[in-house]
């Protein structure tokens, strides 16, 4: 088995490893770097559970060889929280009930991030298109779309609950 050295940046940290030259990127991330937030659903590009960001673009890590990311900048879900605090997108998933079993969540969040980094105010259609390569067997997608909309700042997302007559009276004019 041929061995090659690979160097790249993963979640902001420079990484250099010796690996089998035909190792898949997903296995490199999960087995060599223990980034198990990268999930393997289908292994064939259909489910998006293995989605990561490669130089800012969403890609399926099950369909790449690790040696193909030489010199690249990768982000996995582990790279989103800062100083122990979840990023806004992660928090929005929790707040909107967009996580059930959670298997699709890392990939879903990264597809959403790829969209929002380029287009901070997407329409619902653009959101649905951006996550069209990510399957979720639990949520029915609406809560996920809501979560993504919730942080695209100029859309009104969280529906205000109707005010009671008493609150209505006290409402500032």
């Amino acid at each position, binding site marked *: *088995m*041929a061995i*090659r050295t690979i160097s790249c940046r993963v979640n902001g940290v420079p990484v250099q490893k010796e690996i089998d*030259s*035909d190792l*898949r990127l997903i296995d490199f991330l999960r087995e060599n770097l223990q980034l198990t937030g990268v999930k393997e659903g289908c*292994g*064939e*590009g*259909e489910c*998006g559970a293995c*989605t990561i960001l*490669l130089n800012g*673009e*969403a*890609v*399926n890590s*099950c*369909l*790449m*060889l690790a*040696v*193909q990311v*030489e010199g690249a900048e990768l982000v996995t879900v582990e790279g989103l929280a800062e100083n122990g605090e979840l990023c806004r997108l992660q928090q929005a998933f929790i707040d909107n009930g967009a996580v059930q079993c959670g298997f699709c969540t890392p990939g879903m969040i990264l*597809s959403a991030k*790829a969209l929002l980094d380029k287009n901070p105010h997407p329409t619902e259609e653009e959101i649905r*298109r*951006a996550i*069209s*390569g*990510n399957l979720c067997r639990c949520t029915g997608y609406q809560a996920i779309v809501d979560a993504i909309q919730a942080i695209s700042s100029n859309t009104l997302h969280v529906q205000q609950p109707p005010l009671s007559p008493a609150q209505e009276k006290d409402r500032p004019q």
Partner: protein
Amino acid sequence: MDVFSVSSLEEAVSLLNTKKNAAIVAGGTDLLVKKVRNKLSVDSLIDICGISMLKEISNEVDCIRIGALTTFATLERELDAHPFCAALRQAACEMGAPQIRNRATIGGNIVTGSPAGDGIIALLALDAKIELISESEKRTVPLYDFFTGPGKTVIRPDEILTALIIPNQSGKSCFYKVGKRNALAVAVLSEAIYAEIREGKFETIRITVGSAAPTPIRAFRTEKFLLANRFNDEAVHESIRLIRDEISPIDDVRATAAYRREVAGNILRVLLQQLEK
């Protein structure tokens, strides 16, 4: 398995010449699926993604040259500049999902040679040629002559597909695909048309159909009929009947042949309507 990463065309063709049982890997979206299914029997892979000159779209005097490593995401973004290539842009928009479009290359789509290849169907309507290079030779082949059977093409083991060449044209093109869902679905049937219409008559028309035969095909009989008649409702009606008759689809897991014939006519109607706009 050895994997060689190259950054120049010279390196690539020289490796292809010396490594006897090697395959090229570009975006990997077809090849890696084959590999996990244990259907890839090669000793080494040559990763060509580092050859940056194969990622360019350039305008030449009489044609557009699209590098083989251009991804579908790039085609979707950049083809607005060439309105007559609308069919290819539309095919790029509908292909796969974002993760696939970001990696999948147009060269890989062509060499895979699936009768359902979305890029292929659009490029055939645009009368594209492809450029193949080996260490000893460079040749240009009309895309139409490239396919010999499902997944079979005339590419030689020592050749690399470097570019597609689309002649500049003055007409309009469009593409339509029917699949089981929007994202990630292999086409049940797809069609593309390129046409030049003057004073209610077709001066040029090319109609291509995907998933209708062992290779991507042109609907020559339907084209011939449309060329010979005025572009009106009756001609549209007759052409729909003709295309249903002309194609030879099969029953498979995705659809029956009868359904495909039905859909072929319906798509033709939609595309001819789009041309009128």
